[in-house]
């Protein structure tokens, strides 16, 4: 009997080990999600908290459930929200492509570097993470401002007379997002390219492929998983970005993160803000599932 118990405990350990992160995710991801979902289906009132509770005791023996879809309808009808969603996706998409164009050659160069140089380069890519994200965005404000470093330098060099308007434009938001998310593109690409066998490139050359042809027929197809992983890792969070469009774009660049914030804070309209969040989540569910699928396939191979 004790042996049976011991065996069960052994297999039980596996369950316990999985249970701990599962409970963590349940508490800090699933539960908050349901809370936001609940608020998004509630009626907005001037109260604290500023929404009607889901369940209300009508009398001693009856409970009424208050669910309204007004908030979602409101988002759908007001063109502001639709425009903002589309604008967010546009900016995020373009930023992803820019990250890819800049990050791909960088990742490739790192892979081909000597071992010492490789470590230095990787450190340079990761180092910014060790400083505060907010500070780095503020630094960009200082660089891009009309009276900022870049403009001052250009005027001092005599290249321009009037400062170029950079801060509080869409351009600044692109700079901010690409700068911040570039490591998220470079690292998955690097991980994928590291596994690329040099012999394959030599084999291609041996069979008659010139360097460009080798790149198009061998390197590129084999780095597609890295490209997709990096792109999703940039696109998904960038769509919901708040700090960068707020600080670098000012009021001029409409991104959904900012809209959510102003609904929540300025309007104290928690239900609408929650609805905005829920819609954003569902928009990104498809790319997120795609990412998960690719990662699991990569880890299998």
């Amino acid at each position, binding site marked *: 009997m004790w042996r049976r118990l011991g065996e069960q405990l052994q297999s039980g350990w596996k369950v316990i080990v999985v249970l701990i992160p599962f409970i963590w995710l349940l508490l800090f991801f699933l539960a908050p999600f349901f809370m936001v979902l609940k608020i998004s289906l509630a009626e907005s009132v001037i109260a604290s908290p500023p929404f009607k509770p889901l369940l209300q005791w009508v009398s001693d023996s009856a409970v009424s459930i208050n669910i309204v879809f007004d908030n979602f309808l409101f988002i759908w009808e007001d063109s502001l929200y639709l425009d903002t969603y589309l604008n967010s996706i546009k900016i995020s998409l373009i930023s992803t492509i820019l990250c890819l164009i800049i990050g791909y050659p960088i990742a490739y160069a790192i892979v081909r570097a000597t071992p010492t140089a490789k470590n230095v380069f990787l450190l340079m890519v990761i180092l910014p993470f060790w400083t505060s994200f907010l500070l780095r965005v503020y630094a960009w404000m200082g660089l891009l401002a009309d009276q900022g470093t870049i403009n001052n330098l250009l005027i001092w060099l005599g290249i321009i007379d009037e400062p170029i308007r950079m801060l509080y434009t869409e351009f600044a938001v692109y700079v901010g997002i690409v700068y911040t998310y570039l490591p998220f593109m470079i690292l998955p690409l690097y991980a994928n390219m590291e596994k690329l066998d040099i*012999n*394959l490139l030599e084999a291609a050359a041996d069979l008659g492929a010139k360097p460009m042809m080798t790149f198009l027929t061998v390197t590129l197809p084999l780095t597609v998983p890295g490209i997709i992983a990096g792109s999703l890792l940039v696109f998904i969070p960038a769509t919901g970005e708040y700090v960068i469009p707020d600080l670098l774009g000012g009021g001029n660049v409409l991104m959904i993160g900012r809209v959510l914030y102003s609904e929540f804070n300025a309007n104290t309209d928690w239900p609408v803000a929650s609805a905005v969040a829920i819609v954003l989540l569902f928009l990104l569910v498809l790319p997120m599932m795609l990412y998960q699928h690719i990662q699991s396939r990569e880890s299998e191979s």
Partner: protein
Amino acid sequence: MDTGSKPDFEDRPWLDPDQQPFIRIQGITKSFGPFVAVDNVDLDIYKGELFALLGGSGCGKTTLLRMMAGFETPTSGKISIDGMDMTDVPPYERPVNMMFQSYALFPHMTVEKNVAYGLKRDGLPKAEIADRVSDMLSMVELSAFSKRKPHQLSGGQRQRVALARSLVKNPKLLLLDEPLAALDKRLREQTQYELMSLQEKLGVTFVVVTHDQEEAMTLSTRIAVMDQGYFVQIGTPTEIYEYPETCFVADFIGSANMFEGRVRETDGKVCLIDVPGFEQPFQVEHPANIPVGAKVWVAIRPEKLLLSPTPITETGLNILKGIVDDIGYYGNSSTYRIRLQDDRIIQVTHPNQRRPRDARHVADWEDMVYLGWEPASGVLLTK
């Protein structure tokens, strides 16, 4: 010219003075910084040869192969293939193909597409590509696997795809980097014969790099033994095995029992060698006149020693006496380690010609045995 002598050179073109070498390597040196990988080597390889570059790790054989393929540029020297200077020609413009040790099959392409890759780069019409690919695949017996991807194939099948891919363009020269290294023994033997028959059928010149001397001996028409960037000896497998020119070669190929000694006497046919520790001088057949007193080595292959538990009566043999120290059983033969009178151990190989029920060897452990060898069986080496 005497045309009657032509057939004699048919499978030994390097002996024919009228033959032009197909591949000419002249003064090739390759250095990586201060390290010299290939040291000013010259080599002529003839059309249709299966030539082996044999040596241990770091001897420069792979570097030389890569220079023939075009993946490395020589620091100095010239490489010509079929009369054309190829020294500075990039790999994608050479009529040379290579079979990599790791096969380097494109993982994202099917077997068919892998084999067709080279033909597509040449811009051939689709129909022709399809024909040549299917011909090649049936030659390597992989027609049924044409739609599979490399990860769905076994090691031996992948090797055949690599072979098909490298031969489908009918290259003038095929380079093989350790082609049999990754295969198990049975597959290795099978592939050896397949390679040889393919080569004969297609008439392609092969250059094989290997560290496995058995592989080199079975496969090739000629072998170049390499050490530290230069050729120690070039010759046919028989020449290398039975007529090594240095102690290095004698020891590298197969095993050899080495005796160091000094020349006592020589008459142009047989040399008498004084070996310290043995009263009787060794008699070794050697055509050249070596100065008396010169330091020499006598190399005797284990299979050339006659092993007898009783004194040997045959005349004209060198006789050694010893005690059986150890016996290694290999099934078809046994290797006896004999401790001689000067305490050194030599090896004697004996085929197991009898099939006794209680598996007695010719001699047992700790037995006293007599060894005999003919003067012609010993190799006299001066370096």
